[in-house]
């Protein structure tokens, strides 16, 4: 009976009676009561069901994008000039024209493919190194004292500043480009991993030790899974920063890639193409972050996703 009071607080106000009707069954079976309302108890209103479902998320998402587009359209159409100036910003229609124009040849898609490959390569290397190094640094004090000062010096250096050094460091320019995207992704992944490892409840570590876990199985079964939520945060941030550094990286290439496409459009002063390049990078970044969130769900099935206030 001790668990019963908890139940009262839980169900939605629409169905106050339902849990009470159910609870005796649980108690009678001696099972820890699951604080779930019976789905059949009272059907929530259509609006509520919609509000909590995927439909609403999709609708809000569409609204978010649409309002940006609408603002863009209105601001460029009426040539908004209130300190921030839209006089010379290309209109959505002009960019749409470009979309059709560039898709008449396979070159644009090739550009995208090449950029995605560069980002993924850089990102994979950054994940391997960032997580590996992050666990070591987070777990062992000597490693932290030894590695962090040097890494902290490199961390604030902007991607574009790396361009000349990157060209000279690597024998192949493709590697130079991947190196710059790697730098973008590496630091967020590393720091989040370190943070995740340090944030693990010491009670868990002690418990595992008491159960006879060695260092290796401690890392495998406690530290890594415990740090995983933070690691995935690092991956999501790292993926974003990798895309941010893309233009700097692809300045080196001089051909191919969506960052290069945007850069070249600047040198020929074609604003619509610049906007198209920017939007493409944004969309690709969004897709990649979505991919990482999906991966996170698969990798951490135990994690209940808190959706926040409705």
């Amino acid at each position, binding site marked *: 009976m001790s668990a019963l009071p908890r139940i009262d607080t839980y169900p939605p106000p629409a169905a106050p009676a339902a849990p009470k009707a159910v609870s005796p069954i649980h108690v009678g079976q001696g099972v820890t009561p699951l604080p779930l309302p019976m789905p059949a108890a009272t059907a929530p209103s259509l609006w509520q069901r919609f509000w909590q479902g995927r439909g609403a998320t999709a609708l809000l998402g569409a609204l978010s994008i649409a309002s940006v587009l609408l603002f863009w359209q209105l601001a460029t159409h009426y040539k908004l000039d209130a300190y921030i100036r839209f*006089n010379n910003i290309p209109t959505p229609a002009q960019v749409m024209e470009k979309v059709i124009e560039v898709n008449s040849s396979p070159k644009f898609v090739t550009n995208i493919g090449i950029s995605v490959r560069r980002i993924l390569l850089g990102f994979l290397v950054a994940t391997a190194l960032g997580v590996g190094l992050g666990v070591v640094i987070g777990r062992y004090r000597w490693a932290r004292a030894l590695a962090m000062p040097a890494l902290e010096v490199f961390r604030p250096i902007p991607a574009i500043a790396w361009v*000349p050094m990157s060209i*000279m460091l690597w024998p192949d320019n493709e590697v130079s480009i991947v190196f710059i995207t790697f730098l973008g992704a590496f630091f967020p992944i590393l720091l989040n991993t370190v943070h995740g490892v340090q944030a693990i409840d010491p009670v868990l570590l002690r418990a595992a030790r008491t159960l006879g876990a060695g260092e290796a199985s401690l890392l495998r079964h406690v530290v890594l899974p415990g740090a995983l939520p933070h690691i995935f945060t690092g991956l999501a941030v790292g993926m974003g920063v990798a895309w941010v550094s893309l233009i700097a990286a692809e300045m*080196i290439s*001089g051909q191919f890639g969506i960052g290069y496409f945007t850069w*070249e459009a*600047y040198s020929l*002063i074609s604003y619509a193409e610049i906007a198209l390049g920017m939007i493409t990078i944004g969309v690709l970044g969004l897709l990649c972050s979505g991919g990482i969130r999906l991966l996170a769900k698969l990798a951490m099935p135990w994690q209940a996703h808190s959706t926040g206030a409705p």
Partner: protein
Amino acid sequence: MKLTQLSHIPSALVKCLALCAAFLAPQAQAAKEVVTIGIGTQNTTTNTVTGGVVLKELKLLEKHLPKTGKYANIEWKLDWQNFTSGPPITNGMVAGKLQIGMMGDYPLLVNGATGQQNKGNETQLVAVIAYNAFGSGNGVVVHKDSPYYELADLKGKVVSVPFGSAAHGMMLQAMQERGWPADYWNLVSQSPEVGTTNLQEKKIDGHGDFVPFADLLPHRGFARKIFDGAQTKIPTFHGVVVRKEFADKYPEVVVAYIKALMEANDWVRKDPKLAATKVQEWTKIEKEVVYLFLGPGGIHTLDPSIKPRWVETIKIAHGVLSKLGRVKEFDAAAWVNESYLREAFKQRGQDYEAQKQTLANYDITGNDPICKVAVTRPKEAGEIWLATGEIVPVSSPSCLLAGVKQYEAAGKKVNVAYLYDKALGIKVVADKAFYALDTSNPKAPVGVPFLLKKDAEAYAAKSNGRLATFAEALGQASATVTASAK
């Protein structure tokens, strides 16, 4: 004014008063209107310095800006912004942040066309800074160890050039002229900074670039120029564009700018050695390269007039870029505005129409101390810049070789030596040139300098001579120390 009257008061008090005055000034003087003039310069693009960094450092624009009459109540604020290429300047002009900008011919065209397509952002070409009537200044360089000696050697190779630049235009021009398809080579876009590093690291086979890189990179010792813009015979120039709205509102400012530009040109011509040294100090481009461009008989001629040929060049550029779908329609006549130039010439008491007709540059003059004759044929002359700072004019390549030999024997280090390419007519650095060496008269061997190996070979074949490098030519010159110029 106030300060001079108070000058007998101890300086601390004066300072205090000046400070107070500065704080009170806005209220006291019926609010002077501050007009900011954004000027987009290209300090590292050596042939634009007299429109940019020289004006800034010598404060020439401040000297000419109108301060009386309708401008009595206006305070000019100069906002100098430096860029390494033209497109960012065009961007700044479209955004209304720059009122005056300077760039090479192809970027100028993009600037004019972009302005005409964005109503209210029209620009006008109001003056030229420097030109080469045959297109020299742009060029293609390769790594010095590479086996390429002409453009055709780069077939199927990776060649980079800053897209949208005058050098890009030159390469497109060269390709269209030769009927080469777009995939003749792998032409990629790299900014001068990126291209330079890539060439140094041998990651690209060739790099096309504008002033001064095609000559700067060989000077820095890791590159060789294998194609010069002069081979296209299409002029190249850098010009000044002004936002039309600004020029219409403050025409006197544009005239003042042109007068300052002309004064800067005079300053360079008056003492090119000093100018080159100063420009090196301000822009970090080596003085030897600055002198190669802007010194006497240099690759570029400082001349503000807008000659009909330059406008033709822009139209050719428009044709080249139109073919690639890179630029839309463009009205050159509406873009060129000579009225400010005419006014500036008038105010300086000079004849604009006469200046427009001439292609004359100032030349190497003086007495050749090696061969002991006066320098009379500037296109066969040369100069030796000694490490001590002295620049010695010489009358011929033979005299130059003999002179270098003499100075080296006397333990005097030669900084750099210049000669003229017999085929292209441009000033070249002597130790980077190829020579057609005619040793038929062993007493007086004749070395004829060329920038390009193929030109030297052709001349050698024609004149029964042989191809030689500077070192070989210098070796032959040893016996000719006292030979007379002929």
